[in-house]
């Protein structure tokens, strides 16, 4: 199957006053993949995402999302994307099922809160407030709100930051499941192990530029071909494997 680009970013720039946060970025995201935007803090990842999500004005360049231009068809784009913001809160004093109802109204979609909560295994928390959830539950709930409108693409901005290894693996499973159901996923992360196992392709962003796009495997192979050697020989397991092995795989609340 030929890979169809669903997002095309062409020579995108964004200046905040004198500061250029994004300096001419171009890339494509293919339909049905998990695409990772990787890079250090302040590299321009979040800015790039927010421009594609229609939340931020660009300075110049072109962005097409599923055939819609962000300049002319922002409203059409909003209807087919789901957005999880880094550190976003939810409407105060409402429980999860009321929050889902609210988002159903915002998207103009008729769905029951339970069917959405079921997708992220939070039905037993339907009457809980968002702030009473654990870190992993909060992220899963955020993902549930991105799925309400059956989006073509969802954007997840550092969804696993601050989670323990079990919650992180649990979230990976959820994200893969979403991809397998045909939704394209664009994700940012600081964890390279996560990008390596989760992302189909990754782009490295640094200083407002893209410094490389490929599959994680190709990147690693190319580096090895260039004669790279780790200082310390890697064993077949790492400390996280030990952690999971000792504390069990099942995911805990709290």
């Amino acid at each position, binding site marked *: 199957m030929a890979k169809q680009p669903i997002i095309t970013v062409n020579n995108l720039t964004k200046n905040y006053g004198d500061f250029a946060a994004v300096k001419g970025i171009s890339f494509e995201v293919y339909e049905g993949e998990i695409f990772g935007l990787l890079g250090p803090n302040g590299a321009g990842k979040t800015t790039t995402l927010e421009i594609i999500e229609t939340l931020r004005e660009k300075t110049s360049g072109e962005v097409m999302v599923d055939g819609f231009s962000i300049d002319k068809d922002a409203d059409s784009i909003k209807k087919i994307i789901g957005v999880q*913001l880094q550190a*976003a*809160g*939810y*409407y*105060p*004093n409402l429980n999860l099922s009321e929050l889902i109802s609210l988002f*159903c*109204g915002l998207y103009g979609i008729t769905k029951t809160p339970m069917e959405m909560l079921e997708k992220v295994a939070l039905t037993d928390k339907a009457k809980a407030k968002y702030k009473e959830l654990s870190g992993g539950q909060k992220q899963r709930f955020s993902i549930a709100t991105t799925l309400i409108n059956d989006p073509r693409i969802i954007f997840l901005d550092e969804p696993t930051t601050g989670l323990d290894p079990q919650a992180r693996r649990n979230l990976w499973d959820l994200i893969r499941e979403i991809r397998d159901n045909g939704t394209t996923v664009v994700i940012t992360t600081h964890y390279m192990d996560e990008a390596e196992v989760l992302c189909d392709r990754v782009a490295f962003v640094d200083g407002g530029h893209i410094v490389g796009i490929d599959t994680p495997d190709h990147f690693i192979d190319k580096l090895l071909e260039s004669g790279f050697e780790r200082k310390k020989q890697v064993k077949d397991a790492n400390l996280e494997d030990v952690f999971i092995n000792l504390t069990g795989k099942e995911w805990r609340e709290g």
Partner: protein
Amino acid sequence: MNKYSNTRATLAIAKASFRSIIRSPSAVVFSLAFPLIFILVFANIGGGGVAVDVGVAKGSDTLSPVYTALRKVSVINLITTQTADEMGKNLSKGSIDAIIDIKKNVIDPSQSPVGPQKSPFTVNVQYTTSSSKGAILKSVIVNILNEINSTYQQMSGQMLPPPAAELRETTVSGRAYKYIDFILPGQLGFSLLSSGVFGTAFVFISLRLTLVIKRFFATPVKRYSIVLGEALARLTFSLLGAVFIIMVGHFMFGFTLIHGVVTVLNMLVLSAIGLIIFMGFGFTVSGIAKNESTVPPLSNIITLPQFLLSGTFFSVTAFPKWLQYVSNALPLTHLNNAMRKVAFEGAGLGDVTHQLFILLLWGIGVYAVAVKTFKWE
């Protein structure tokens, strides 16, 4: 795909916001509890009007017509429980205003029916320099005695010279203007003011800072839906609160509603107008404030002067002239005045166009500023 409905999105926000408001303790306390507490306190301390405490000396003839007449006078509070000693002390402290002693005189029937003779009663009154209310008792007693004396003289068949001047008194039968009639509209106005300013400012700054609004913007919702939805929720909450305050005032404290339900509806229309204007202040504050902790001081700058100067507790006419100019410039003054006219005088909305016009000017001014200062992100 179904056509996207802005109305549905607006109502979804309104519903969420309403749920959030009724679960927020501060909204309920400021909009309902405080006004009701103020009403409770002021309706009880302000209700009595003037009272003259008069000690009745032991051995007074309580069957005499003078005593009976005194008892009927509502401003006179007759005290019969204190001893002569206590009364004397209290009188010199001014904690009672006078002591009265009514003695029946023994009339000797053997004496000639014509010619000078003793009066049937003697009334001794002791006033005090510690209280100025003795004068009220004095005029009451003079009135009573005049009446009793002339009846007595007619009964005893004595001819009287015609009086130099004749007094004719009439009392217009009117509605009693109770303190609750003054305090309730003021408290209603205050409730609307605090809900409009504090409530709106807090909600919008917290939605902005916690990125709730930003998350909303990633959905197809329109900006006006967010503002309208929030406004609808606050309006619903405040109007329900207003109905509650009016009902408590009416049924528990006898608040006057001249035309019943029509008056209530007129008051609700005024409440809605007031709230919309006050929300404009709230939008402005949420735009100017950097974070949640700067909301209270900014909001107080707007609400406190109006709370004190807009005739919430006492009439604006009690202020010195220069301060009245300030009072008459404030929107809450005009909302309060319009409310009182509607509730007590039975005015329709058409009769308070002057107040509505000034409120309209405020509305235009406030929203012009709010549009400039309001921040979405």
